[in-house]
């Protein structure tokens, strides 16, 4: 029995555990009980403290539950403003389907679909039959978007090759087999993206030796490009062309970039070639003039290539000199039917394979710039003499390194033929005047509003109306009011005359202050406070919710309601309430969470102290019992001897009396 209970149970003078035999045993038991009771006094105090702390911890848990419910109610308001609460209608469903998601806002949008685009498809030119070499499946080259990919099926059958393509490059192209006639099975490739993707399947023999097309020029070919967009305004001006150490004055027919470039090519003596380039994107033009020297190294001691208008400042910016140029006039001869040329850009020890749409220098340069533009810039220069074009490709390092660049050409067999050309989708949003091109039919109209294009709108925009349901918001706001009032009620039980376990604790005031910050949130918009949403704050600190007020506000100006509420992360009431509740509920730093953790740690420490002290009291009790038992046994023995001797003496006295 623990000492404390022993003490509390010792109502009689006799110990429950100590039963002596001497006449003083009851006194001994009383001494033990008293000593144990005195020793147990600190344990009693600690136990009382633990009981108080446990009650406070239980109350904190209750408050935590209420604040968590309030946090959840705030989140539900955010959800009621999210994508699931919105509906979208389209005036012409044949043109687009519209879906709404989080971030959507009510409003009227429009989209004018010029074209829904097309996915490029290609099909084998004949029945698929590629013989395996040495009983090994062939490694084919799949071409998608000018880039080459290696594909090896389990065998050379159309099905195996299509499966291998789908397994490795299903994100780029969809392959399937089609029986177009009895005993005529072909592979059909369909691009996953809209637009021209140049789909093909090639078989490049491993024994094919690529032809190197470039010559290295360590001294470099000087190149410059107009620094800003070309200014073609004004009457024809005189330009000064700077070629190395030479200068030439030219007067083109107009100030257009095309006229200036053609004049340079006509009069400069063949030391430099000018070309007009368009750096514009998305349908807008940004014309520049590119100057490139025809010979490697400095011209009259200088690599400078510049243009000055009417003696003004230089218009060109010097670029990194090209260190590689095609050795001979570029051959753009088309491949014969059944074969196709593929190219490789060699950059130092790296080799990148690609297949342009055709063999022209422009297509090859465009493919290089598109695929490997981070490493190298390819430009086409026409070294024509006597009116005969002589196109070459120049390669400039983009990284400034002295890497050796080359272009290699290989010809292999090709099996596919374009069946349907690809085209980008084009559309205009909200009559902005900007025609956008897209490689997907899923178009973002606005944040959270996505249209899937179904057909062209025939020149007139279709209307998209996005509206939000009030009922979801009504339910959420009502739940918020209930959760808030429940939290207030729980805090009230900790105040006043009949205070709860947390009475007088600062956390009660702190939590009340947090609730007050939520309920009194104000904004400078059309709706300035929660009263505008039908949440009236009473003098007792409780909300009274009037659903009609919210409905009226939402019908009158739903934008104002949305603006006042804002979002959990963006701003407005929801962010304010979320931040406040996070300050109480954040797992590690929240006021309630830290208080609960501290309280539990304190209770654990007290329990450990009580256990230690109780053990000491128990040890004291045992020691006292042992000592008292020994004393009692001694006294009992003495009493027994005394009784024996006293009896002997009495008997002797009686005998003496009898024999007198």
């Amino acid at each position: 029995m623990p000492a404390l209970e022993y003490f509390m149970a010792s109502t009689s003078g006799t110990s429950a555990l100590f039963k002596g035999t001497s006449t003083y045993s009851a006194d001994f038991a009383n001494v033990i009980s008293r000593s144990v009771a005195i020793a147990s006094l600190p344990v009693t105090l600690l136990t009382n403290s633990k009981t108080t702390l446990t009650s406070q911890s239980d109350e904190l848990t209750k408050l935590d539950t209420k604040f968590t419910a309030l946090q959840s109610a705030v989140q539900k308001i955010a959800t009621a403003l999210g994508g699931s609460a919105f509906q979208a209608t389209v005036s012409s469903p044949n043109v687009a389907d519209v879906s709404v998601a989080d971030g959507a806002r009510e409003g009227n949008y429009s989209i004018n679909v010029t074209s829904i685009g097309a996915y490029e498809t290609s099909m084998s030119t004949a029945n698929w039959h590629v013989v395996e070499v040495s009983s090994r499946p062939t490694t084919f080259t799949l071409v998608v978007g000018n880039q080459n990919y290696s594909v090896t099926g389990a065998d050379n059958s159309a099905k195996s090759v299509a499966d291998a393509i789908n397994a490795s490059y299903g994100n780029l192209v969809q392959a399937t087999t089609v029986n177009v006639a009895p005993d005529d099975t072909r592979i059909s490739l369909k691009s996953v993206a809209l637009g021209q993707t140049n789909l093909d399947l090639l078989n490049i023999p491993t024994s094919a030796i690529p032809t190197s097309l470039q010559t290295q020029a360590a001294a470099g070919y000087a190149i410059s490009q107009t620094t800003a967009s070309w200014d073609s305004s004004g009457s024809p001006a005189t330009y000064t062309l700077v070629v190395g150490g030479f200068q030439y004055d030219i007067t083109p027919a107009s100030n257009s970039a095309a006229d200036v470039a053609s004049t340079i090519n006509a009069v400069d003596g063949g030391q430099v070639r000018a070309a007009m380039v368009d750096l514009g994107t998305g349908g807008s033009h940004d014309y520049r003039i590119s100057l490139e020297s025809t010979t490697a190294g400095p011209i009259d001691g200088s690599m400078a290539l510049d243009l000055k208008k009417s003696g003004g400042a230089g218009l060109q910016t010097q670029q990194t000199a090209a260190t590689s140029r095609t050795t001979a006039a570029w051959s753009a001869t088309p491949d014969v039917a059944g074969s196709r040329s593929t190219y490789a850009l060699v950059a130092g020890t790296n080799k990148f394979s690609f297949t342009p749409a055709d063999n022209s220098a422009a297509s090859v340069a465009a493919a290089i710039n598109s695929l490997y533009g981070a490493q190298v810039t390819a430009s086409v220069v026409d070294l024509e003499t006597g009116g005969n074009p002589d196109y070459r490709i120049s390669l400039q390092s983009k990284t400034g390194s002295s890497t050796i660049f080359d272009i290699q050409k290989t010809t292999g067999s090709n099996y596919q033929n374009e069946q349907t050309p690809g085209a980008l989708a084009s559309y205009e949003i909200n009559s902005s005047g900007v025609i956008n091109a897209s490689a997907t039919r899923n178009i973002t109209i606005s944040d959270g509003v996505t249209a899937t294009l179904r057909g062209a709108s025939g020149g007139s925009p279709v209307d998209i109306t996005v509206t939000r349901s009030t009922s979801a918001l009504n339910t959420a706001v009502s739940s918020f009011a209930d959760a808030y009032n429940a939290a207030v009620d729980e805090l009230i039980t900790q105040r006043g005359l009949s205070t709860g376990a947390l009475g007088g604790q600062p956390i009660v005031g702190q939590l009340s202050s947090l609730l007050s910050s939520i309920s009194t949130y104000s904004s400078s918009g059309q709706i300035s406070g929660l009263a505008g949403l039908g949440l009236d704050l009473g003098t007792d600190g409780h909300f009274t919710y009037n659903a009609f007020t919210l409905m009226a506000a939402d019908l009158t100006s739903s934008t104002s309601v949305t603006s006042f509420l804002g979002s959990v992360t963006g701003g407005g009431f929801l962010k304010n309430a979320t931040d406040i509740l996070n300050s109480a509920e954040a797992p590690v730093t929240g006021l309630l969470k830290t208080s609960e953790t501290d309280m539990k740690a304190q209770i654990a420490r007290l329990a450990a102290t009580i256990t230690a002290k109780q053990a000491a009291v128990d040890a004291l009790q045992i020691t006292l019992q042992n000592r008292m038992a020994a004393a009692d046994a001694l006294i009992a023995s003495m009493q027994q001897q005394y009784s024996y001797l006293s009896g002997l003496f009495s008997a002797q006295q009686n005998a003496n009396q009898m024999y007198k």
Partner: protein
Amino acid sequence: MRLLPLEPIRQAVISGEFGRAQLLWQERAAGLAEELSNGSLSEARLMEVRELVEWSRIVALCERAHLQDQLNSLHVAGEYEFPVPPPAHRIVETSF
């Protein structure tokens, strides 16, 4: 009589709008029947139509094959999904 161009049908097929292509084809077919009946259907025109029909047939065949593949993929994906439990039957049902 003005000949209706066949190019819009080709464009509709290219962009995958087969419903629109069919509507356009029905419209053109009526015109072709009229050309045939009044003897104005030239051989070149007939060749043009024949080429379009054959090309459309192959494109539609390929499209069907791709869609069949997608359908098969969806079927396989469905087989690997968690089975939806059957709706629980209530012992007591009430209605008002």
